[in-house]
C-alpha cells in the first residue's frame, strides 16, 4: 500500500471534481464572504456582552429576593420603633420596683396608724 497507489491511480475524473467544487461552493459569490464575516463579528459582539447577559437569568429570583429583603427590613424597623416607643413606660414601671418611693408616699399618715392600732386592739381583746 503505497502513497503512489493512493494518490495517482484512483484520482477522480476532473468533471466530477469540478462538479463537487461547484456543489460545495457557497451561494452569493464574493459578496457572501463579507456577509459571513459580518455575522461572525456580530456574534462575537454578543459574546463580549456575555458576562452581563449571564445575569439575565438571575433577574427574576434577584427581584424576588430584593423584595423579601425590603419587607424584612421594613418589619424590623417597625418593630424597633415600637420597642423604642414602649421603652419610657417600661422604664417607669421598672423604676417603681427597684427604687424606694419618696418618704412622703411610703410613710403612712400618723392619724391613720392610730386608728388602725385601736381597731387591732379591739379585735384582739
Amino acid at each position: 500500500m503505497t502513497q503512489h497507489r493512493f494518490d495517482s491511480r484512483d484520482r477522480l475524473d476532473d468533471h466530477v471534481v469540478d462538479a463537487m467544487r461547484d456543489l460545495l461552493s457557497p451561494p452569493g459569490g464574493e459578496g457572501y464572504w463579507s456577509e459571513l464575516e459580518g455575522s461572525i463579528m456580530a456574534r462575537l459582539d454578543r459574546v463580549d456582552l456575555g458576562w452581563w447577559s449571564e445575569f439575565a437569568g438571575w433577574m427574576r429570583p434577584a427581584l424576588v429576593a430584593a423584595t423579601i429583603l425590603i419587607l424584612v427590613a421594613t418589619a424590623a424597623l417597625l418593630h424597633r420603633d415600637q420597642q423604642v416607643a414602649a421603652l419610657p413606660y417600661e422604664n417607669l414601671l421598672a423604676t417603681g420596683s427597684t427604687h424606694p418611693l419618696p418618704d412622703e408616699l411610703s410613710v403612712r399618715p400618723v392619724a391613720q396608724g392610730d386608728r388602725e392600732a385601736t381597731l387591732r386592739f379591739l379585735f384582739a381583746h
Partner: protein
Amino acid sequence: MASPRDATADERMLVRAAKGGSQEAFADLVRMHQRRAYTVARAIVLSHEDAEDAVQEGFLHAYRALDRFIPDQPFGAWLNRIVSNAALDLVRRRKVREAEPLLPDAVALPFRDPSESDELRTRLGKALQRLTPRQRAVIVMHDVEGFTHGEIGVTLGIPEGTARSDLHHARAALRRLLQDLKAH
C-alpha cells in the same frame, strides 16, 4: 494558497492583537481563514446552512479559546480543527434528532448527459451523502481544496496515513456510486 502550517509574521501579530482584545485583529483573522473554514465545514455537513453554522460556532469557540492558543502555531490549522469538530458535532446532533434515512434510490436516478451540470450535481450530492462525514471531508479537502494528507490529518485529528487510506476508500466509494454515470 498559503499552507495552514505556515504561521506568517502577520498572522502571529494579528493573533497577539486579538488575544489582547482587538476585535479588528480578529476580524482580519476571520477574513483570512473563513473560506477554508467554510470548505472544511461544508465537506463534513454537506448543507450550506449547517456549514455556515459550524463556521460561526468554530470562530466563536476559537475566540473564547484564544487565551489557550500559542501564537507561534498556525492559526488556520488550529481553527480548522475547531471548525471540523463543530461540524462533526452538528452531524451527530442531526443524526440523533432526525435519523433521516437516505433515499434508497438516491444514486439510481436516470442520468442522461454528464455535461448537464444540474443533473450531475444532484447525482453527486446524493452520492456524497452516502459517504461517512470523515470520508466526505477527506475527499473534498484533498481533491477539491488541495489540502495535503498531513493538513487533513491535523484538521480532522487523525494520523496522516489514516487520511490517506480514507481518501482512497472515499474515492472508491464515490466511483462505485457514480459508476452508471461513467457508463454513458
